[in-house]
């Protein structure tokens, strides 16, 4: 009858022990009201002529900084760090014990999923810079005399970043639906398949494959559009996040990626709600099946709402309506980041630090390899739930405001004059639905 204490990371329920308290009703309503009000203020008062132009926006970074980040040794150093990280991951995956104190779970579910996007919002395209695959493909190209961006076959343009959307779905399925997601062998299998696909894809299509089909690189590079770091004709420039965001290419599949990222985070909040739990546990069908359907439904619903909102506008002659969703999808990126921060902030601080502690003991034999084993987990956020809730709502509202402004800019750039105001309304309604829905999930779970 004595409780058996196990790690701060857990089986059957993803990673992490206690979860945040729901935000208060007052805070949720205030956040939602501000979001709605700001949306219409933007619509009424914002600029009427396009402001951002990828060809001219941004000012060049200081010469020493450009020289540094573009130097061969700096790039090589970053890729080398990525290669060492990959080697470490392989060691803990292959030789580590199947215990919750194996750092692989925290690295996979917290550092990669939440840490990398936060780092990308601060420093730019982190995954691309660290990607060991790019080092391998560059090495192969150098040996064979080819160009590292082009492989044996040209990457089919029409595929766009759809493969990345699928890969991201594979990740969130593993995180949110698969019941044995904190057993070592399924995580090892997932990473093994990922590694295999990346190496084969890179050999076939070159670096273009990584920019389009590596789920983590696509995720990281999209969030990096909200950083101040951009490129103009290859030159490193500093831009405001809004101007930088506006340079996001409208690659086919962008709607898919956005839908998976936002839909899955919303489902993560929803799946623990009393309503969903009592429902799925009362139907008599397996919870696994119903969670599968739930995740899929959330991602499809987000995609469908967004897609409908984008095409419900008047267009000019010869303006293909079906291109609009991909052209507008970039404006959901800040909403995604705001919601991910709100949802995973305490998680990334607490389990992220826990993981840093565990990395010093890769083989679970009590060693303190990097000296991080003696750190302590900061539970400050958990002890200050009001502060945490306020920060969460601020993240959601800030993401919403940036998203609305980004969509407004795109609308006045793309749509014919007479449809500019009315054309924005459906998308604005969709964004308000996403934000208010997100706040509702933070409130009700």
């Amino acid at each position, binding site marked *: *009858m004595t*409780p*058996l*204490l*196990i*790690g*701060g990371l*857990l*089986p*059957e*329920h993803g990673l*992490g*022990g*206690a*979860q*945040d*308290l*729901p935000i208060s009703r007052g805070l949720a309503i205030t956040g939602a009201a501000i979001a709605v009000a700001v949306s219409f203020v933007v619509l009424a008062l914002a600029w009427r002529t396009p402001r951002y132009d990828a060809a001219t926006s941004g000012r060049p970074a200081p010469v020493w900084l450009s020289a540094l980040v573009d130097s061969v040794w700096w790039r090589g150093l970053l890729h080398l760090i990525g290669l060492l990280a990959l080697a470490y991951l392989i060691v803990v995956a292959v030789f580590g*014990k*199947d*215990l*919750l*104190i194996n750092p692989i779970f925290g690295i996979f579910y917290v550092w990669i999923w939440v840490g990398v996007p936060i780092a990308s919002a601060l420093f730019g395209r982190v995954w691309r810079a660290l990607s060991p695959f790019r080092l391998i493909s560059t090495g192969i190209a150098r040996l064979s005399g080819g160009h590292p961006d082009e492989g044996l076959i040209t990457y089919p343009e029409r595929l766009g970043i759809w493969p990345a959307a699928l890969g991201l779905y594979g990740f969130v399925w593993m995180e949110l639906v698969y*019941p044995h997601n904190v057993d070592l062998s399924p995580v090892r299998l997932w990473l093994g398949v990922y590694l295999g696909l990346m190496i084969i894809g890179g050999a076939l299509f070159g670096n273009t494959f990584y920019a389009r089909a590596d789920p983590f690189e696509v995720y990281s590079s999209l969030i990096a559009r909200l950083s101040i770091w951009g490129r103009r004709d290859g030159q490193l420039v500093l831009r405001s996040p809004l101007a930088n965001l506006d340079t996001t290419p409208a690659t086919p599949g962008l709607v898919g990626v956005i839908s998976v990222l936002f839909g899955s985070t919303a489902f993560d909040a929803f799946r*623990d709600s*009393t309503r969903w*739990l*009592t429902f799925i*546990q*009362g139907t008599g069908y397996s*919870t696994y099946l119903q969670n599968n359907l739930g995740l899929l439904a959330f991602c499809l619903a987000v995609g469908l709402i967004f897609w409908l909102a984008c095409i419900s506008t008047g267009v000019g002659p010869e303006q293909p309506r079906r291109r609009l969703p991909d052209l507008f999808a970039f404006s959901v990126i800040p909403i995604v980041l705001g919601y991910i921060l709100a949802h995973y902030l305490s998680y990334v601080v*607490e389990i992220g630090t*826990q993981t840093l*502690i*565990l990395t010093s*003991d890769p083989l*679970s034999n*009590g060693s303190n390899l990097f000296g991080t*084993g003696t750190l*302590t*987990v900061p*539970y400050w956020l*958990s*002890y200050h*739930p009001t502060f945490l809730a306020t920060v969460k709502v601020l993240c959601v509202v800030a993401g919403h405001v940036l998203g609305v402004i980004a969509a407004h800019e795109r609308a006045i750039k793309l749509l014919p004059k007479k449809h500019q105001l009315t054309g924005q309304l459906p998308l604005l309604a969709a964004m308000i639905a996403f934000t208010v829905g997100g706040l509702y999930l933070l409130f009700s*779970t």
Partner: protein
Amino acid sequence: MRRLVALAVTLVSAFTLSACGSSSSSSGAGDDEPTKVIDITFDGNDVTPNGTDIDVKVGQRIELDVTADKPGEIHVHSSPEEQEFEYDAGSSTLQVTPIPAPGQVVVESHTLDKTLFTLVAR
């Protein structure tokens, strides 16, 4: 998840004891509260409660009164340490370590693969 649990205990407690130390000062809030008694009844594949929210105070003592038709296991997904309980057929009383910080703690039946309830600690 029973594998090498003992080893995990040793290592993780080394990591997390320091975190517990800081929480002891704030565990006073729920000390005066009467013990929260939660009745759990297992009958075949059914269980009550079945996915509800239960409010508790931070630091409040929590007792699970289990009535079961066959033995099983309950997981309490608390931080910094998870708690696992085994119970036998018949009636048993399980003492849950009070929840040290505000938050939501999911309590699951490992046997039925269902969430019994979520403790909402304020």
